[in-house]
């Protein structure tokens, strides 16, 4: 049924595009407007070898591949697009429900100054996403697009209204629930532009309502078929100051994700949910300070009450911790706990000016960051009837520590040819909850001290050698969390087209003598304009890979991989 649906929709989109293309050749000379077809492709494939020592499993297919192609057509105020995805079979570390191939995204859109209408797969975000965000992240195979209709209107200056309805993508099908949403935003300064033109303070207000509908087929429980969620936000800006805050609430929404266990028995939780997020900053040339905070209580919001992991999420709960890019600081990343957490982050960045003692000839950049996340402190109400609340929380009390990260980074250019980055991080991670979602699991808490030195020597205008040295000291008697690591990386870019790199990750602190292993990995790549091909060979440790706030676990692997990306 669904295949048929995708095929017919593809034919329709294709015909529409062909028609418009034929039409546009006539109109081309008349209007000086956008008229283009563009796209991009990505193909990843890996050949897997079993390696019992590092824990790389047997892959029966030997080779696995992920591929997708995206094509967009734009003609003046009209645009349309399709995406084809193929997993034969899906690579290790991704959800195995991505199986086979097909058209997974197609849309048509018309927009002018007053109205903007889209049909098909829609990506949209209300406010900071606490109530609604659909997006696509190919690196994680995350796609929760809404297949439906969206209308955006700007009826009067300063006002934007959005309305949408549809079902969400779930692998190669759609989720069971209907999602409906409405969002309004008012930029006060734009509405009263003549009256307020001398006022330096800018204020933007917004509000959203999102509701999902799913039939109750449970024989035992009376489950709400419609679940509403609503909230408001404001953004105030004056000079270098910026303040954003959003608060949302969700009606009772019993689901697998908020399943509560009371006295050894599992109950659907009819608890309401709420979330608060704020971000405030002051920035001036050469100095900035950022404060972020959030509190989340029972805010897993999905268009299927039985969905798990990253499937069919309607909202997005941003993590307020430092996003790391180096390997070892990103070894144990933090992921937002939708059932309940409170957390925050403070960051100061400044530039030591040129010509000062520390700054030298080129100046020096310093970043200080501290972030923390704790559980909430739920107090059981001890009402074992499943029709009411199970717990209450308050804003003053926090539960146990989930994560912290104290971080300092210094970047300095020593000469025209030589520059370096130096960082230190002190990280705490409650691995049981943050990574395994098992509060009483065996993994325990891990404290890590992490250092990174990253040096670049640019020996010719287009040629450079880069070296990274990283260390992470942890409890070396901890058999589950593998103890300490050291990483060395050497990268050579002889010109702007090629790169060659070698990396060795050494688990010298593994409590098991036999498992004190080197994971050596080589890679090389070629880039030409928008085209890029890279090859790699070697051993990769098991790990967690995150983009934005979403993470996936990747098992250890040993083998050869190729990746091609291209856009036109």
């Amino acid at each position, binding site marked *: 049924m669904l295949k048929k649906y995708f095929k017919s929709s593809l034919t329709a989109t294709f015909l529409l595009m062909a028609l418009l293309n034929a039409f546009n050749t006539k109109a081309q000379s008349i209007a000086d407007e*956008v008229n283009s077809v563009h796209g991009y492709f990505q193909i990843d494939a890996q050949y897997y070898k079993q390696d019992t020592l590092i824990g790389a499993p047997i892959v029966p297919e030997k080779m696995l591949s992920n591929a997708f192609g995206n094509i967009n057509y734009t003609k003046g105020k009209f645009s349309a697009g399709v995406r084809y995805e193929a997993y034969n079979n899906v690579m290790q570390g991704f959800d195995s429900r991505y199986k086979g191939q097909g058209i997974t995204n197609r849309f048509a859109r018309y927009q002018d100054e007053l109205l903007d209408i889209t049909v098909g797969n829609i990506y949209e975000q209300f406010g900071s*996403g606490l109530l609604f965000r659909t997006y696509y992240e190919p690196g994680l195979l995350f796609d929760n697009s809404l297949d439906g209709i969206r209308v955006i209107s700007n009826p009067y200056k300063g006002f*934007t209204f959005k309305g949408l309805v549809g079902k969400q993508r779930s692998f190669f099908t759609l989720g069971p629930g209907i999602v409906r949403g409405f969002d309004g935003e008012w930029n006060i300064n734009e509405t009263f532009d003549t009256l307020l033109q001398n006022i330096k303070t800018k204020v933007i207000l917004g509000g959203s309502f999102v509701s999902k509908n799913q039939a109750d087929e449970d024989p035992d429980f009376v489950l709400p078929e419609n679940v509403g969620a609503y909230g408001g936000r404001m953004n105030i800006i004056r000079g270098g100051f*910026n303040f954003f805050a959003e608060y949302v609430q969700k009606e009772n929404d019993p689901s697998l994700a908020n399943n509560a266990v009371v006295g050894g028995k599992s109950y659907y939780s009819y608890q309401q949910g709420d979330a608060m997020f704020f971000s405030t900053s002051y920035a001036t040339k050469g100095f*900035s300070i950022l404060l972020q905070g959030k509190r989340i209580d029972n805010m897993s919001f999905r268009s299927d009450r039985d969905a798990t992991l990253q499937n069919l999420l309607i909202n997005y709960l941003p993590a307020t911790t430092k996003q790391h890019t180096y390997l070892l600081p990103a070894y144990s990343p933090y992921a937002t706990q939708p059932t309940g957490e409170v957390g925050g982050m403070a960051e100061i960045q400044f*530039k030591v000016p040129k010509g000062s003692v520390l700054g030298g000839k080129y100046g020096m950049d310093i970043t200080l960051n501290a972030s923390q996340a704790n559980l909430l402190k739920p107090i059981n109400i001890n009402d074992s009837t499943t029709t009411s609340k199970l717990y209450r929380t308050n804003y003053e009390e926090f539960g146990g520590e989930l994560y912290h990260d104290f971080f300092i980074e210094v970047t300095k250019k020593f000469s025209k040819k030589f520059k370096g980055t130096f960082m230190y991080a002190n990280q705490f991670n409650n691995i049981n909850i943050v990574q395994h979602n098992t509060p009483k699991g065996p993994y325990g808490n891990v404290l890590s001290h992490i250092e990174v030195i990253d040096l670049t020597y640019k020996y010719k205008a287009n040629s450079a050698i880069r070296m990274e040295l990283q260390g992470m000291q942890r409890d070396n008697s901890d058999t589950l969390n593998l103890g300490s690591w050291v990483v060395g990386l050497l990268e050579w*870019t002889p010109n702007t087209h090629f790169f060659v790199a070698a990396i060795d990750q050494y688990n010298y602190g593994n409590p098991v003598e036999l498992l004190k292993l080197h994971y050596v990995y080589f890679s090389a790549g070629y880039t030409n304009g928008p085209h890029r091909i890279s090859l790699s060979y070697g051993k990769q440790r098991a790990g967690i890979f995150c983009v934005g706030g979403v993470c996936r676990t990747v098992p250890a692997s040993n083998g050869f991989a190729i990746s091609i990306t291209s856009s036109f």
Partner: protein
Amino acid sequence: MKKIILALLVVTAFAFTSSRGDGDKIPAITVKKLDGSKISTGTFANGGKPIIISFWATWCKPCKKELDAIQENYADWTKETGVKLIAISIDDARSAGKVVTDVKSKGWEYEVYIDENSDFKRAMNVNNVPHTFLVDGSGKIVWSHNSYTEGDEEKLYENVKKLAKGEALSH
């Protein structure tokens, strides 16, 4: 399955037959200014001079290296060719608040916009950041480059100079 591949091939063929020789205009997508108000990317202009559009994110190390490297010579670049750099941040709600603090503390003098749910990124077919585009004086996209390695900014500037003089570009 065969039908799908055939359809894709045909659509791709359309891509190459449509007039791409002179490049295409920037698609009109709504992005956010640092003051929270909205602007259409269709209004990007630089008075007949070239524009560099650079997609970046606060968590992307190579992106920031590239923008730092350009900043060192940006005053000379603008003086010599009149070029303007527009930096498009693809940071989502988690890090969008960090865009303004990064830009100011690094002292970047670019025009910066936030593409919070990647609408412009998708319309420009950007897969990974950094991804850099060159737009000519008439507003047409004439060159693009994915990723950053040391020295890429010099190559970019060679092309900006060629563009300002009306010469053919190289990759």
